[in-house]
């Protein structure tokens, strides 16, 4: 009889997903490219007025990050579900919720982290400067893992359903709203000179709360989906 | 009773355009829901008897 230690199992899950991402580098590149393109469309639509761009910057960039997360949610469990890896993951003798954290972490590394790293550049496009750029990056760093965790619930619930791509968006977007509000709020309050600490700490609270609940809900949803 | 006439009642102090649609749509929604449930039950029990 054998049993992997918790950290061993967690590392195994993360390593496999990152290895797969390395084999599919174009997927990662695509989500980065998506973010850049969508963010660049707004100045074209709204007009190049710097003052206007600065006011909408936080909202636009946050919504873009949110969409990028949403687009990549389909990849989170579907492939594993189709080739039977998910089934085997459920049979790993460690708490499924912890393994879900591993999967979500690698999803974030692939789809969220690139957006965070890119955000200063995108912020410059919108005329943000100095402190606001830092706040934007920090808020995305805190917020995108939360998005991935909440999104995982939706991805697990809609696993293997027809039209699941659209459905997951409908289910998950209302749950994203607090993160969007606090994230965009942090940037605009720093622009307004109020100080972004309040929003950032609320964003941190959202992160902790979803870390406490979302993996567990995702684990339950996965077991339901695989019955 | 503060209403002098039916017309006054319907005018709702000039807000009739807002008050009556509110109650009308409420009645419509609730009545519609009752009818929908009724029909659903009828349809369900009918096909149930067939089988």
């Amino acid at each position, binding site marked *: 009889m*054998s049993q992997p230690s918790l950290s061993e199992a967690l590392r195994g899950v993360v390593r496999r997903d990152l290895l797969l991402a390395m084999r599919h580098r174009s997927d990662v590149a695509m989500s980065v490219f998506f973010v850049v393109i969508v963010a660049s469309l707004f100045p074209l639509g709204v007009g190049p007025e710097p003052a206007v761009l600065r006011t909408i910057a936080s909202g636009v960039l946050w919504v873009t990050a949110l969409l990028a997360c949403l687009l990549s949610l389909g990849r989170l469990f579907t492939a594993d579900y189709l080739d039977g890896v998910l089934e085997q993951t459920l049979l*790993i*003798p460690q708490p499924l919720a912890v393994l879900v954290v591993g999967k979500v972490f690698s999803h974030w590394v692939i789809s969220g982290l690139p957006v965070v790293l890119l955000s200063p550049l995108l912020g410059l496009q919108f005329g943000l400067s100095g402190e606001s750029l830092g706040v934007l990056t920090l808020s995305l760093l805190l917020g995108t893992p939360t998005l991935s965790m909440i999104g995982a619930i939706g991805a697990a619930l809609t696993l293997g359903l027809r039209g699941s791509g659209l459905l997951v968006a409908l289910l998950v977007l209302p749950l994203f709203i607090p993160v969007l509000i606090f994230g965009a709020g942090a940037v605009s309050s720093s622009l307004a000179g109020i100080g972004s600490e309040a929003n950032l700490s609320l964003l941190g609270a959202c992160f902790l709360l979803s870390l406490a609940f979302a993996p567990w809900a995702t684990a339950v949803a996965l077991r339901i989906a695989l019955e | 009773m503060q209403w002098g006439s039916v017309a006054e009642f319907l005018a709702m102090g000039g807000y009739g355009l807002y008050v009556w649609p509110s109650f009308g749509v409420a009645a419509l929604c609730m009545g519609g829901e009752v009818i929908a449930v009724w029909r659903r039950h009828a349809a369900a029990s009918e096909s149930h008897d067939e089988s």
Partner: protein
Amino acid sequence: MFQTVALSGSRGERRLFSDVNVTVKPGTLLAVVGENGSGKTSFLRMLCGLLSPDGGEILWQGNNIRKLKELYSAQLTYVGHLNGIKDELTPVENLKVSACLAGDESSGGVVQKALEAVGLGRAVHRLPTRVLSQGQKRRVTLARLWLSTRPLWLLDEPFASLDAAATSYLTQQIQSHLSRGGMVVVATHQEIDLPPDCIQHLRLTQ
């Protein structure tokens, strides 16, 4: 010892089987047979704990597996319909990851030996699994059994798309597992070439 008590199960709203009582003693194999759609896969998934029964209990050493949870998962190796391997990874990588996740030894040497035992030569070890044939993929999956140190094996159609050579490798491996006191449950269409005194059959009918 592994047993089911008055087990019943359904798929969707269709009742598949009910009141199944079987006991699998160490060193014995239970062959689950029946036509397509008779519920063999559901039965096996239920024994894994992936599917919850409608009624009845599944007992491992006298304890309900629902209560044991992860303790029970640590006792079994399941090979399902789906291979559970990643097309993009090589056979070696696939096997290493699954052995590591099972808590088995996952060093390169052991993994290569297991792959050779199922008849996969070194030539394919470093290719992405995607390019392998159906039977070769199945062999990669089954190679997990050469690494497994768990007492209970649950195998769903393990012989499907295997050639004669691979079938005999697998039969030998099952036999040596049984002789070590292991337990095996197999869903299959085929006769298994094992001494009859260690096999019992469970026939599911519609």
